[in-house]
């Protein structure tokens, strides 16, 4: 994959222009991926059986919101791109939409929402798009305001695409400092393509031990899904690498001594002996100097 990360191309309100927004409306692959991630995030939210009022950060075209609506919840979505919100309006999503920048802080009273969901959005907060932006501060403001506007005991599940471990650390630190408990759930950690990060947060103060949800592992998928999702396929056998074979490794073959033109030298010939001594010297072994007597034919008594 040669594509640049979107965050390195332009700020989100510019990157998600009309053309990009159209993909979220019409590209079936895009829609499938986003829907799957939304369903997984909702699963991780572990919502009660009755309708809840949920906040969707970076709701975009309303894909994740529609999954929420399907399950009977009401929601309010925030996004920084007018084009994406335009697509959401066209698709007549049921949630209310707000045009804003999550890094400026949320704009809701304390205890407004029962839960929060975010799909593929918060990594944008890690990049400074303006001179005035300090990513750590924006993350701090975001998580502090998120903690406030959730009810006590509410959960937030934020799926994101970190560029590197430093970003993961920046995000999780900001969340913990805001008062959230919880942690990172990484689905399919051994696959570069299928790997998904979900930050699962809990806003509350209970003495109960917080039980983290189980991440998805390769075995849970069937053969077909695994081949297309994992991307790690052994070139020789064509089998997908969900397991690592550790038996039958071939020993490192010793390099044969070769002369000019790569031809194998006859064993014990002068050339062969000289090259052997040379490789011994390179290996740091104690070797006698070469002389006219090196590799001289000795009498049969040897």
């Amino acid at each position: 994959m040669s594509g640049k990360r979107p965050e390195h191309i332009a700020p989100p309100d510019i990157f998600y222009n009309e053309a990009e927004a159209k993909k979220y409306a019409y590209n079936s692959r895009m829609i499938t991926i986003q829907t799957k991630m939304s369903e997984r995030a909702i699963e991780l939210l572990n919502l009660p059986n009755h309708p809840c009022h949920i906040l969707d950060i970076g709701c975009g075209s309303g894909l994740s919101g529609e999954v929420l609506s399907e399950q009977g919840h009401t929601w309010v979505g925030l996004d920084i791109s007018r084009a994406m919100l335009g697509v959401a309006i066209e698709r007549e999503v049921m949630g209310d939409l707000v045009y804003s920048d999550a890094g400026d802080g949320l704009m809701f009273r304390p205890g407004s929402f029962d839960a929060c969901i975010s799909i593929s959005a918060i990594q944008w907060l890690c990049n400074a798009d303006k001179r005035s932006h300090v990513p750590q501060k924006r993350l701090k403001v975001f998580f502090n305001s998120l903690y406030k506007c959730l009810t006590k005991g509410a959960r937030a599940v934020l799926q994101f695409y970190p560029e590197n471990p430093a970003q993961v650390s920046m995000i999780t630190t900001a969340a913990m400092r805001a008062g959230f408990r919880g942690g990172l759930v990484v689905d399919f950690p051994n696959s570069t393509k299928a790997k998904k990060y979900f930050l699962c947060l809990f806003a509350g103060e209970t003495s109960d031990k917080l039980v983290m949800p189980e991440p998805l592992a390769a075995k849970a998928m069937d053969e077909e899904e695994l081949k297309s999702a994992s991307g790690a396929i052994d070139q020789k056998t064509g089998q997908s690498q969900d397991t690592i074979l550790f038996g039958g490794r071939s020993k490192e073959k010793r390099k044969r001594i070769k002369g000019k033109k790569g031809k194998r030298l006859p064993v014990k010939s002068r050339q062969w002996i000289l090259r052997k001594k040379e490789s011994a010297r390179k290996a740091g072994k104690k070797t006698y100097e070469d002389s006219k007597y090196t590799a001289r034919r000795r009498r049969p008594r040897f």
Partner: protein
Amino acid sequence: MRLLTHNMLINPMQKFEGAYPLKLIPKKITKEEVKYNPLFVVHLLPKLNYPALLYAASTVGLKDLPKELPKKIDPTEHDELLKMLHHVLLEVHVEEGLLVCPKSEREFPIKQGIPNMRLNEDEV
């Protein structure tokens, strides 16, 4: 933008945290039916600031709500009231209008039902 959302909105600027509720100046309103779920309305009630809801409802011309909510709401007993609340909270949309911060008088326009709450660089 529904009145349920207006009931929760505050000025995103940290300076004006206590500024609530935002003044609502609707210019265009639409109404869209939403499936009535009495239990959900009951679930929403503790989250609401009722005086703010009364204010918002009056700006869009709905003045039939009682001045105070009964202490204990029962879905069967207060069915009429819950239906009215359902309508006010979930079925009325402000398509065009203005939200104004009561402290700073900063205006947040509403277009196509979406309030623009993006802050300028100097406001962050």
